[in-house]
């Protein structure tokens, strides 16, 4: 007889509980409770930041003014905007049940979600970056992590997506970069408005089959309920929200640079250096859109921008060199945005 897979539908919950409930399941599975597939829908919009990410990536003032809570999760990924039009799902297993190779574990735990999308009529696939996509458009965000001795992979069914708000909650000072980010998000992130009841059923079938487990309606254990109370406190504490010790500070305050990931392989960046300013949209390592500013460019700004479209990042500096000192300043600003790390 197969081991059970608890299927727990938490329904519609306040933002805090839409995170802490499934983190508590992680504690429970770690303590020996059966594996669980859980679902929760946030009752209100909020912003959720990946474990390692800085709060400076979020426009905290905007969030405060608009009553959007900001929470930090224990799993990875970037800051995301979540609301009632997204059904969040989580699969949680003992750490020993999955491969020690994280990519392999992620693949194993995302494939059933892909199967569920397909079962409800969305011909999704898992791309080489382990994004769940429809063509080249991401249709499901995901994050993963080990919570004590349990592995959790979470994702979402996006029934509708407020692209504008998803970009607005991010701290992006450069208006050109903000516009580019929104354009790319509209192009590369999409909703799949399928019946959530059918999706839950398909997810249950797919995960049970893939993991060889017997799906049963589940409840939280006593350990999990106790953990929930702890997590409710932890997640609203300033210390937790601040995140782990930040990365070592860069050597100087200037240049100012900002990178925003829209999906794997799709980024925007902006940077300022010595009076030169760049804002660029990058798709699969090539310049998709770019805005340049340098006083010395005079009337050749458009020409310089056009010269960069379609170029791989390695070709940007040589192309800008044709525009003399302003081109070199712009190339330095481009380099300051560390496109090599994207």
């Amino acid at each position, binding site marked *: 007889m197969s081991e059970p897979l608890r299927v727990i539908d938490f329904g519609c919950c306040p933002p805090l509980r839409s995170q802490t409930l499934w983190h508590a399941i992680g504690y429970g599975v770690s303590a020996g409770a059966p594996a669980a597939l859980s679902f929760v829908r946030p009752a209100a919009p909020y912003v959720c930041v990946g474990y*390692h990410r800085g709060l400076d990536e979020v426009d905290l003032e905007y969030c405060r003014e608009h009553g959007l809570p900001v929470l930090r999760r224990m799993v990875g990924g970037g800051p995301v905007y979540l609301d009632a039009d997204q059904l969040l799902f989580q699969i949680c297993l003992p750490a020993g049940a999955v491969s020690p190779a994280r*990519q392999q574990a992620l693949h194993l735990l995302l494939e059933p979600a892909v199967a569920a999308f397909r079962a409800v009529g969305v011909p999704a696939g898992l791309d080489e970056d382990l994004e769940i996509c429809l063509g080249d458009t991401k249709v499901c965000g995901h994050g993963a992590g080990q919570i004590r001795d349990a592995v959790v992979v979470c994702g979402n069914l996006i029934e509708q997506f407020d692209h504008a708000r998803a970009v607005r909650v991010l701290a992006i000072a450069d208006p050109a970069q903000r516009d580019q980010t929104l354009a790319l998000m509209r192009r590369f992130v999409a909703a799949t408005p399928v019946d959530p009841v059918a999706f839950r059923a398909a997810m249950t079938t797919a995960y049970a089959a893939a993991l060889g487990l017997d799906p049963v309606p589940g409840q939280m254990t006593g350990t999990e309920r106790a953990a929930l109370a702890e997590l409710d406190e932890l997640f609203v504490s300033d210390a937790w929200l601040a995140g782990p010790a930040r990365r*070592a500070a860069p050597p100087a305050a200037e240049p100012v640079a900002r990178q925003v990931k829209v999906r794997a392989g799709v980024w925007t960046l902006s940077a300022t250096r010595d009076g030169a300013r760049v804002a660029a949209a990058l798709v699969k390592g090539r310049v998709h859109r770019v805005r340049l500013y340098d006083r010395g460019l005079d009337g050749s700004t458009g020409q310089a921008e056009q010269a960069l479209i379609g170029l791989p990042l390695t070709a940007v500096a040589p192309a800008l060199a044709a525009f003399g000192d302003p081109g070199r300043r712009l190339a330095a600003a481009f380099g300051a945005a560390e496109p090599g790390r994207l």
Partner: protein
Amino acid sequence: MEMAGWAFVAGFPLALDRRYEAETHMWVLVTEPGRARIGMDPVGIETSGTLAQLSFAPVGTELAVGRPFGQLEAAKFVGPLVSPVSGVVLGVNDAVAANAGLAERDPYGAGWLIEAGLDESGGELAGLLADPAEITAWFTTKIARYRLEGVIAQ
């Protein structure tokens, strides 16, 4: 190529001047009595995927065998860095915290993770792999097993 204190096993460098925790692939290099540097070997790093972030418990945090002293993130997967010793965190490698890729490029050197003050008993060190022949055999077997299981590339 062979160098003193080193072996190369199935394409992975292996430093033989330190101790290893067999499950977590953490190494422990005693730098002076009661003090050790801790890092992750290349096989541990390989199974993690491309490292995006590393974070460590602050200096002064108590360490316990089997408990996390930090977290690593690769491919949106956050997982614990598990301590092979008990003691206290004496220092963290800010350079690797700022650039996790350093642990991939130089796992035995500049990519070290934390410095630990060891518990006085020092008994835990005896539980780690220390003999070069034993370390090499473990590393060889582990790589072969991981390759057979597809955990790491052939």
